[in-house]
């Protein structure tokens, strides 16, 4: 199990964008199970219209994707550290995804449990898949996603 401080030490994401609270299972470097509690105090819930209905409080799909993907980042950065020694200044970037399905919305009070598999390591990229649950309900599944590792100095702001 990895606690929040361990996670902070492994991936470059920081508050409020660090969207994994704890790692509950992991099999280096192929599979990881993480949890993230959704609360109404997160920045995404700031400034909602008065009287906004229940549906307005659905956890944004972008943050669900990001939270799920950070599990892969933890596995990946741990592998980089174990195999290549300490490495800094590189960031994992989502490059593409397909067949991502959202079965049920997630609301404040729900705890997400993400299952992430890294199906293939290939140079500076990984291919991954997995699911997200609240309790026993599968709320999302990710058929295929690919992320690349970019040294920060190579991130340019024009077209890639």
């Amino acid at each position, binding site marked *: 199990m990895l606690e929040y401080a361990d996670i902070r030490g492994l991936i470059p994401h920081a508050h409020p964008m660090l969207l994994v609270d704890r790692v509950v299972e992991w099999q280096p470097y192929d599979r990881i199970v993480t949890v993230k509690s959704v609360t109404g105090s997160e920045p995404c819930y700031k*400034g909602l219209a008065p009287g906004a209905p229940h549906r307005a409080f*659905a956890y944004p799909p972008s*943050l669900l994707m990001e939270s799920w993907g950070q599990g892969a980042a933890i596995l990946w950065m741990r592998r980089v550290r174990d195999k290549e020694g300490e490495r800094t200044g590189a960031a994992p970037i989502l490059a593409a995804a397909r067949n*991502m399905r959202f079965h049920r919305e997630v609301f404040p009070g729900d705890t997400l449990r993400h299952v992430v598999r890294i199906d293939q390591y290939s140079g500076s990229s990984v291919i991954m898949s997995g699911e997200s649950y609240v309790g026993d309900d599968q709320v999302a599944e990710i058929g295929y996603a690919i992320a690349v590792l970019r040294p920060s100095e190579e991130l340019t702001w024009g*077209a890639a």
Partner: protein
Amino acid sequence: MNAAGPVVVTGPRPRATSVDPAHTVTVHSPAEVSVSRLVSADDPYLEGHYPEFTVYPGAFIVESVYQAVLHLLWRTRGADAWARPVSIDSVRFTGALAPGDTLDVHCACEPTAPGRLAATARCTTAGNTAAQVRMTFEVTPSEGGSHA
């Protein structure tokens, strides 16, 4: 329905989003809509992505596609219309965005089944493609509550 010129949207958020809600919307036709937004360093999540250099998360572009679809529905079906994403069929990120850049999302929508709408979006910054997104939404024609 007549096409509407750009409308600047600010104020309370109609739903939880990861990005600041200010944006400009242009409804071109009942099937086409554009949203533009300035990527701001003040967006609350950006300080953590990443602390030493800011990268606009690709997943946040998806939020603007969602917002575009909602605006189209509100314009064509009324203020009670709503959409829930059921799938991201395909997304490909090809360019990085940073604070100060403008994200332009042009979205074409078509019904694919009763209560389902497919959106195909080309997302650009300064004319360069930043992302291409295909999503499917479940559309609720009428439901109580207000989005405003």
